[in-house]
């Protein structure tokens, strides 16, 4: 029996077709993974199936759920299915929970209002659901007291309380580190146990591999390839799928380090860092040499960015010493940010920003042009503003801007975590090339240990300090809301 089948789903924005006719079926016990880059139309397809498309878009096609046939264009018809037939795992669990409600009532509310149980029975069911997810002790906590993983489990308990057999998860691992990613995969597979259906939308190959089942590769709104996940991932047919898999850090070849180590650019001895009264880094010693890449990994909130701020001289260490090589200009230490859009002035054309930097550093007039060629960027981009350039191009422009300052050291803080795998490989490749050709020392931060293992010559893993779990989650939330105030202003 098929749980859900969608036939010839098309999404249109006026006359522009965003998703070409796509058909899919979802069977009990067999997960379906839709794999694609940002802008491939995978989220639109899922929204069309759920009837949650934005009002400006139009969908055609037919969706069959639970023995009922619904035209995809009729949004109102889907309302009754939400919670009862389809459960959606929210992307940002903290944002989807009521901040003023304890965990158990959030789940009980769904039991009472969606499933229609009386109050007492709903509370019992909620308590049992949380118990089953290992959250028995957390049922009286408020969302801000829960860790990210716990909040996600509460959210899925609430989403599934209506008894929906189909679970849809749109990018469930966005911005999570490797350990949390596996937790989410486990949680999703748990939903299958009772003969339910699971639809996962992701760009994350590791997650797709963990989920298994069947795989559908989407690009520009069209299906390129379908088949069993393990078969597609081990023997891809379409050229794009092959490229996508080749771009996964798992399939990169190890970078060969230059044989002779360059001069020491920066040395940190017995470094201890605190921020906001929290001990982040304790007694760390490291050395950065020209031409070498130092990989820094560790769970979210373990102080990777703070370490960078300290190395760049923007945070004063509590103890320990940071020594820069003699004779280096203060601007020889540069940084790449996770979100390149935020790293440029919003209203200024990019070319103007770059020319300002070139003038400040007395670079010859053809320096920008030469670097554009080297970083494979079109000169036409310079007339645009940061908001209208793709993330990959903008990150390369950020690299270009840093190069104008003739840096000896670049701290790259998760420079590719918001980019697609193919773009990620390009950017990391460029960084590695620059390290070799220009003798740059690079500190590369990533939450992906595989990527670091492939690229870095030396690796530092920052452990989570004792008693910092809740502080870590608070730090993640603070970062999400852009509340952090860097030391440069204090």
């Amino acid at each position, binding site marked *: 029996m098929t749980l859900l089948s969608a036939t010839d789903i098309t999404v249109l924005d006026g006359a522009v077709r965003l998703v070409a006719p796509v058909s899919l079926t979802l069977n009990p016990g067999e997960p379906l993974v839709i794999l694609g880059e940002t802008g491939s139309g995978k989220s639109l397809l899922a929204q069309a199936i759920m009837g949650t498309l934005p009002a400006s878009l139009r969908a055609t096609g037919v969706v069959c759920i639970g023995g009922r046939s619904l035209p995809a264009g009729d949004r109102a018809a889907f309302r009754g299915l939400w919670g009862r037939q389809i459960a959606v795992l929210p992307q940002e669990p903290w944002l989807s929970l009521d901040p003023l409600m304890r965990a158990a009532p959030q789940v009980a509310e769904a039991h009472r209002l969606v499933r229609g149980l009386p109050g007492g029975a709903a509370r019992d069911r909620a308590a049992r659901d949380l118990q089953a997810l290992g959250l028995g002790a957390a049922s009286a906590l408020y969302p801000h007291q829960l860790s990210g993983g716990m909040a996600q489990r509460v959210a899925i308990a609430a989403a599934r309380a209506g008894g929906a057999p189909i679970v849809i998860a749109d990018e469930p691992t966005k911005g999570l580190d490797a350990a949390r990613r596996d937790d989410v995969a486990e949680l999703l597979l748990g939903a299958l146990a009772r003969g339910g259906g699971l639809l996962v939308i992701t760009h994350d190959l590791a997650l797709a591999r963990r989920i298994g089942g069947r795989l559908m590769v989407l690009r520009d709104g069209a299906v390129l390839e379908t088949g069993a996940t393990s078969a597609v991932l081990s023997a891809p047919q379409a050229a794009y799928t092959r490229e996508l898999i080749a771009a996964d850090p798992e399939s990169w070849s190890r970078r060969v380090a230059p044989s002779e180590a360059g001069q020491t650019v920066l040395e940190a001895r017995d470094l201890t860092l605190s921020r906001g009264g929290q001990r982040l880094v304790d007694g760390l010693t490291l050395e950065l040499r020209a031409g070498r890449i130092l990989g820094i990994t560790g769970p979210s909130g373990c102080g990777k960015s703070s370490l960078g701020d300290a190395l760049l001289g923007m945070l004063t260490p509590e103890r320990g010493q940071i020594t820069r090589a003699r004779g280096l200009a203060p601007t020889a230490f540069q940084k790449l940010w996770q979100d390149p859009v935020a790293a440029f*002035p919003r209203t200024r054309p990019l070319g103007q920003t770059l020319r*300002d930097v070139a003038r400040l550093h007395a670079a010859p007039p053809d320096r920008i042009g030469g670097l554009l060629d080297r970083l494979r960027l079109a000169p036409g981009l310079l007339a645009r503003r940061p908001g209208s350039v793709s993330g990959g191009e903008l990150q390369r422009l950020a690299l270009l801007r840093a190069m104008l*300052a003739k840096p000896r050291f670049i701290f790259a803080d998760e420079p590719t975590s918001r980019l697609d795998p193919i773009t990620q490989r390009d950017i990391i490749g460029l960084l590695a090339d620059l390290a070799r050709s220009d003798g740059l020392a690079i500190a590369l931060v990533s939450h992906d240990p595989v990527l670091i293992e492939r690229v870095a010559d030396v690796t530092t893993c920052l452990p989570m300090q004792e008693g910092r779990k809740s502080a870590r989650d608070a730090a993640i939330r603070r970062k999400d809301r852009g509340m952090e105030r860097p030391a440069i202003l204090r």
Partner: protein
Amino acid sequence: MTAAVLPRALPTGRILVAAILGLVAAFALLGPVLVPGDPFAQSLMKSLAGPEPAAPFGYDHLGRSLWHRLVHALRLSPLIALAAVATAAAAGLVLGVVAALRGGWVERLLVILADALLALPGLLMVLIVLAIMPGTATGFWAGLSLVLWVEFFRLTRATARATLASPAVQAARLLGFGWPYVLRTHLWPEIAPLMLTAAAFGTATAIMGIAALGFVSVGMRAPTPELGLMMVELLPYWREAPMALLTPVLATFALLLGLTLLAGGHRT
């Protein structure tokens, strides 16, 4: 991620704003050129008389030309208001940036001061200053500046805090740019549109404040022609000369409408 498209003010709205404010300004500047006369010259023979070529809007209860009194009033209030807004905007901008940049006790002190002023009714502040300098334009300017800077300070500080903490500013600092460059290229483009809106609203508030105090006879002193003062002088004669009373009322309305639309048009 695509930046949200900012809604633009309708062209008709902009034309309306320009027309209203242009008309008021043209009247205030060119009025005495078109019809020469004296706003203070009395002629009791012409008390509440109708319009004539030498006084197109007629006469008030003391036989003074309403045309010339209105011209004078429409120069006085906007001038005080603009001066007060300019002072307040400059002070608010500087103090807001200083608070955001320095942080610590400097910021705390300025915020406490601004909050304390905010807790006082604005007109009361102006009255207190006017008690020191009664009936003078300087008193109004000082009092209104003291009230209006808080708004500019709060807007600037909030925007500057967020902007100065952004990676873009960190990047500029790492690249070796000084604070003047950061303030010019990063901060000013973020603050300027807010400043324009706040300035238009501030001017309207100031003009309204001057008229309100004039109306309750604690603002400018007679015989100075001032919008609120003219209204209260002509109020007892509303039955005999309704148009005479309506003249300053309509002028005030047009001025405030124009400024409010201007503020709305700049909203993004």
